[in-house]
């Protein structure tokens, strides 16, 4: 099916020369749909692939899609023809919508002893990692960050922010949920108050973070773990995540098995593998999130401990599913200056 062009041939030859493992046609293939940055060479994907292939006598193939919601779009487009065994990376805000598609089977894993604040009940989607949304700032240019979401919103002379569009970005959706959770019916008014200080609401996290690093805004919506990246990978200690008094909304990324998985047993083995060290110890500095089951080696040196339970703002995914469209429209109304 694949068009063989000269370039493709050359690529294959170069890859083989570079020592890439040859495709073994006789081994079963486990196909995992995920979001793109997970599979990048500097993401956790390659190391996880190696760890799983060492024990499964199979070939793990990642299919990196444009966003985590993109995984669901893709599966819906493919319908029963889907070749995926596992969908990895859909966050818990989308688990109700995901379950509604009827495409996913139950995971059958024991989730009672996870290191996940608030625990886990869902029988279809299995948590794999989590993080806390937070506004990240440069300590040198913003000496006194707001101490709460309310303070950030209410202070007309407060810092400027870059955020993401909730229609295309998961942190954007996270902030929508956070604002609703803190301000309730007053969220639209709160958005209006914040609006003049929103420099931009970008399509993806990348654009927003890029604008922030360019100095376009005082704060950027990201994760509490972002400063750890600068500290550990770049030896740059200027960045910090503001702690907000109302508590932080979590993002929990999940995995689920497709009902129509071509290799259901292999998929089950992969689900079990997700909660072992082979997967979990690559999350912190690979995906810059927290492992849901702390590996034996613990968190890497210099990686902040997760927020304590009292700093977490619990939200009900089922409620978010029902309200998502309305909240998005509210956001659009409030920001359409």
């Amino acid at each position, binding site marked *: 099916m694949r068009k063989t062009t000269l*370039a493709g041939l050359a690529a294959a030859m170069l890859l083989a020369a570079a020592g890439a493992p040859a495709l073994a046609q006789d081994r079963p293939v486990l196909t995992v749909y995920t979001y793109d940055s997970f599979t990048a060479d500097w993401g956790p*994907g390659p190391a996880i692939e190696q760890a799983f292939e060492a024990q499964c006598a199979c070939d793990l193939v990642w299919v*990196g899609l444009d966003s985590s919601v993109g995984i669901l779009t893709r599966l819906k*487009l493919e319908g029963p023809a889907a070749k995926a065994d596992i969908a990895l990376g859909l966050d818990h805000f989308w688990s109700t919508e995901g379950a509604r598609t009827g495409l996913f089977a139950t995971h059958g894993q024991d989730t009672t002893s996870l290191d996940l604040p608030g625990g886990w009940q869902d029988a279809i989607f299995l948590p794999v990692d989590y993080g806390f949304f937070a506004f990240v700032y440069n300590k040198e240019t913003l000496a006194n960050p707001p101490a709460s979401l309310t303070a950030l919103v209410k202070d007309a002379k407060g810092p400027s922010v870059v955020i993401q569009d909730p229609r*295309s970005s998961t942190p954007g959706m996270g902030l929508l949920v956070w604002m609703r959770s803190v301000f309730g019916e007053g969220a639209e008014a709160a958005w209006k108050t914040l609006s003049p200080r929103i420099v931009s609401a970008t399509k993806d996290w990348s*654009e927003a973070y*890029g604008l922030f690093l360019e*100095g*376009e805004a005082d704060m950027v919506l990201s994760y509490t773990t972002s400063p750890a*990246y600068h500290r550990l990978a770049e030896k740059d200690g200027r960045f910090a995540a503001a702690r907000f008094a109302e508590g932080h909304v979590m993002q929990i990324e999940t995995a689920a098995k497709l009902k129509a998985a071509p290799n259901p047993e292999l998929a089950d083995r992969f689900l079990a593998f997700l909660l072992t060290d082979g997967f979990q110890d690559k999350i912190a500095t690979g995906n810059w999130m927290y492992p849901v089951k702390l590996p034996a080696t613990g968190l890497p040196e210099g990686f902040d401990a997760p927020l304590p339970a009292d700093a977490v703002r619990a939200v009900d995914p089922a409620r978010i599913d029902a309200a998502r469209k309305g909240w998005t429209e509210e956001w659009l109304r409030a920001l359409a200056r």
Partner: protein
Amino acid sequence: MAAGARPVSMGWRRWGIAGWLPGGAAALALVALYALAVAGLLGVAGGPGGFDPFDPYVLSILRFSLIQAGLSTLLSLALGAPLALALARRQFPGRDGLIKAMAIGFVTPVIVAVLGIVAVHGRAGWLNQGLGLIGLDGGTYLYGLPGILIAHVFFNAPLAARIFLQTLQAQPAAHWRLAAGLGMPPGAIFRLIDWPVLRREAPGIAALIFLLCFTSFATVLTLGGGPAAQTLEVAIYQALAFELDFQRALALSAVQIALCLLLTLGLSAFGTRPAEIDAPVAEIARPDRAAPATRLLDGVVFLIAAVILLPPALAILLRGLSLQGFSILADPNLLRATLGSLQVAIPAGLIALLIGFGLAWTARHARLSGHPHLARLPALIASIALVAPPFVLAAGLFAALVGKANPLALGPVLVPLVNGIMAAPFVFRLVGPALDRAGERHDRLCRGLGIRGLARLIWIDWPAIRRAVGMGLAIATAFSLGDFGVIALFGGQDFTTLPHLVYRLMGSYRLAEAGSTALVLLLLIGLLFWLLETLIAGRRHA
């Protein structure tokens, strides 16, 4: 068409198959692909349904889209046309290179260009730093309409200049001999020779730029600042990827296509066809070069263009040149992405050439054989290809084919196809006028001698259109090389491209490496331009 000197014996010749077939086949293929895509999306279990494509939000973004696209077009033409005139009048070292570089802005990945613009116009940008030195603060002026206009002018003014320049330089030599012989002042040369050309080409270029700005996506999202400044394309993406409401995505696409076609038709009513010219073209030193007035004018135009266009380009260059960023050069991903990009861009460029050329060929045939109204049809179809949202086309084709083929194998086939279709209008827009000129010049000769079809293409038309074909192919290929939208929908571990790698790096905090990767992409685009234009357009350049 058989009205020539000799009777035509073969039936297919009487029907002018060689004239109608290329465009007809291209049009049929496009219509079939669109129909397949629509059927594919309708076949997917539906969304909630029962929506109103004209709800207040959609109406408000439509209004904004019209304003920003209209202003972007006006500004791009206002800068592009004088720039083309100045370039037509002047010769200087590096001119050819500059002209080639001008098309690069247009195919720069949006995120790269946006960060270049931010580095100049942002809160902490060069302009504000400069103002700070003299005690002024420009503040944040970028986000909203200003940012969108700056970016769109950065992308499109050089494009407009290149297309204008191409036709300005295709003036018959007799014009210049006459102008020189009569001692025409520069004002008269402009009025009598340049202005008719600009006026003839402006509606087509305006339509192209308007449609590009109207459907602009990531630029508008990032620099627009928020949902007050957005385009219909964003709403379509929202319906398709976020609400998973494929019917709504289709309905909004239909609104977008219908609206854009109406606008294109409106603009084409202003277009004039060139008068029949029967004279050889030659590049001749224009007699208005020496006049002090044009020297001053051209100097001012170059200065304005340089102030607007150069700093962001310089910022992109500087961002790419960093030691940390260069570490990407040792990364095998870079090579893989480069090969992947070529694997998409080369077939996409050829598809664009086939479609665009086919449509232009048949449009000319229709005009020359006395069916001028039919000649509008190919232009209309080319416009549809430009404004049909690529996401919808790609997703629809994917949905239609996924039951019949391995979904993982579809990406490498659909990405070049969709990119090729989207780039076809550029080929059409560039090759069409050149083909028309050749037709008007040689049609009687060809009829008289009975030269048709392939023979006419090779012996008569090719020398006159090769430069336009080279540039069209270069732009179409580069456009596909720089595209990110479609590949993101398919992705895959073993299938990646350079823009894709740029986004991946940025998504993993690696901004320096992303900057250097972007520079590699731009170098590749530059190389491609040079290669295609040298090989196809011949040694003499625009």
